[in-house]
């Protein structure tokens, strides 16, 4: 037991002696949270939309006034006058403008006679985000224009009342669970992967192997130390990230206890997984080469960015065994939904069993000799 504690002591002393490493493993995910939270969470502003008006009737004028209202208020787009539809299409294609609205001749007459009036919208669908936003904006504008000014006393359409269970979740809040998981993964990758192999290559392990320390003490000493580093990274990121994203859940003792439990089992799971992958590796370049690929392989199928249900089946299969999935789900359940222990029960069990399982597989694979 004392020998195991000696390994932990060495690892932790080393960790606290390398402030740069510590800061980098925390700062990088925070930086990612800030950049991605702001980059992905934003709305389209100031898009250039061409208006080709072949009608010039009262309804066309009403439509153009609505465009001006959008340009003056929410500023999603501003309009540019065009006379030629072909020129407008060409300019959308070459990127000089973002979209073009075509008001056909007889548009006003068709509106008044209720003769299936139509508007044309030319978009650059190679940019899904911009074209989607403009389409949505135009659709809501058209819906508003077609809604009768005086509502009928008896409504004949089905109305869908949407009830949002939680307060508005901006993208930074949405990304926080994934960012915490990423910080812990980076900590494990550096502390449990790269440093482990570097120590092996430098001969530090050779020093351990000539002492009477047992294989169990050595493996568990290194893994407990690795998990402790990941726990520190997880707690730090949870607190800093929650404050940055404006989540007050960390101030509730019960939620804090749930978060700590989740951070601990996630650390065990990540560390066990990393140790299993590195247990027979000797080349210091291997964990560095794996870092990016593993990051993609684990991060994206987790459902932290895109819903798992939108994935193809093979990617869904990866997400089932991916510890990131349960870690992200757990953090979402606590940070965004305040779901309590019941909501994270399965995540906790999965991560714990995954961590212990990978360690049990890795221990016999660990060589007590060079």
């Amino acid at each position, binding site marked *: 037991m*004392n020998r195991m504690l*000696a390994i932990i002591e*060495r690892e932790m002393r080393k960790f606290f002696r390398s402030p740069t490493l510590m800061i980098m493993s925390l700062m990088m995910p925070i930086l990612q949270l800030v950049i991605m939270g702001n980059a992905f969470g934003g709305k389209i502003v100031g898009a250039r939309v061409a208006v080709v008006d072949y009608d010039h009737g009262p309804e066309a004028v009403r439509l153009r006034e609505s465009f001006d209202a959008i340009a003056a208020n929410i500023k999603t787009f501003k309009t540019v006058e065009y006379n030629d539809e072909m020129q407008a299409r060409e300019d959308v294609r070459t990127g000089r403008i973002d979209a073009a609205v075509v008001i056909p001749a007889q548009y006003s007459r068709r509106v008044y006679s209720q003769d299936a009036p139509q508007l044309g919208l030319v978009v650059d669908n190679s940019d899904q985000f911009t074209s989607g936003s403009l389409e949505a904006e135009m659709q809501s504008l058209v819906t508003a224009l077609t809604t009768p000014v005086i509502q009928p006393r008896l409504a004949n359409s089905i109305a869908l009342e949407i009830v949002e269970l939680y307060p508005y979740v901006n993208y930074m809040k949405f990304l926080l669970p994934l960012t915490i998981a990423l910080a812990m993964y980076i900590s494990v990758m550096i502390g449990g992967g790269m440093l482990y192999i570097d120590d092996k290559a430098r*001969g530090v392990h050779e*020093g351990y192997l*000539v*002492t*009477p320390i047992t294989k169990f003490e050595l493996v568990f000493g290194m893994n407990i130390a690795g998990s402790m580093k990941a726990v520190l990274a997880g707690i730090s990121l949870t607190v800093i990230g929650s404050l940055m994203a404006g989540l007050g859940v960390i101030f509730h003792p019960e939620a804090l206890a749930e978060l700590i439990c989740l951070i601990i089992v996630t650390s065990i799971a990540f560390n066990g997984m990393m140790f299993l992958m590195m247990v027979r590796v000797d080349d210091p370049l291997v964990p560095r080469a794996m870092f990016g690929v593993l990051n993609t392989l684990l991060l994206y199928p987790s459902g932290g960015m895109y819903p798992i249900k939108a994935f193809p089946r093979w990617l869904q299969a990866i997400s089932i065994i991916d510890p990131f999935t349960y870690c992200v789900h757990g953090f979402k359940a606590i940070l965004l939904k305040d779901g309590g222990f019941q909501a994270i029960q399965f995540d906790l069990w999965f991560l714990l069993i995954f961590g212990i399982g990978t360690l049990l597989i890795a221990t016999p694979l660990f060589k007590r*000799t060079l």
Partner: protein
Amino acid sequence: MAKAKNFPETQSGPRPAIAVEHAVKRYGDFEAVKDVSFSVAAGEIFGLLGPNGAGKSTLIRMMTTLIPITAGKAIIAGHDVAKEPDAVRRMIGVIPQALTSDPDLTVQENLSIYAKLYSVPKAQREKNIHEVLEAVDLLKWRDAQVKTLSGGMRRRVEIARGLVHNPSIFFLDEPTTGLDPVSRIAVWEMLNNLRTTRHLTMLLTTHYMEEADKLCDRIAIVDHGTLVALGTPIELKQSVPGANVVEVHFDRETPEWQARLEGLDGVTSVQAESAGFYRVLTSSGSATTMQLVELAASLGETLTSLSVQNTTLDDVFVHYTGRQLRDEQVKPPVFSMPPRPGARP
């Protein structure tokens, strides 16, 4: 068993501290250590001398439980390495070639962690650390981070680390490699002191002839995984025909010099080192020198340098392996440029 020149054992006790019997290490088809046997008496400093890749480190790693022995056995302090590895580990201190101390930790912290790994009781730990730091003259550096120390001091930290649990047998794998001459001599002095004050048995590997000569009571010459000679430095030198070595450099190379030198009185062998440079083993250095000078004068040849030395371990190594130890230090190039098209071979 490899045919090694053996000299009478100088062990004093009934049981050797280290006994290696027909040790073999194979990696697939490659035999790194070939049927090596030797023993080391308690309190002795024993050297394994050989070039890089000779199998010295493999031998030391087998004795220190770091790699399993393919065949044969090694008994360390009465314990079989294969059957009782933990008992062996408790009895030995090991300084591997690599620096195993953590550069981010202080000297004291490194030693404390290793004392814990050896289960040194808490009450004893501080005392041991103080004693070993005093022995290696690093007391005033105990709170310094290892990375701030010089190469020689770091090597002393390694030595202190290997001694922190009071082992009875000390293994050192090339303890002075990479050190400057002054630091090297300091390490030699320290090891000699430690042997005296702590009654340690030491086994060290080296490819420095001078180190083996100065430090070791007995030396085993290892080449290509085989033990080719074993004895005290004096015994090994005496086993080489010729008491002196005359090194002579002529200003120009002529093919006749080899035969002329071999014809001089008392000369036992002549080795051409480079153009015009010869090493002559002779039973009488002074007589051969006189003859050589006279011969050169009579032929009108000019000697650019001439030196007479006693036989060294270098000569012993040449005698037993047929080449110089330093030849082995020069590795062949990993990559050589292909000849240009049309170039002459």
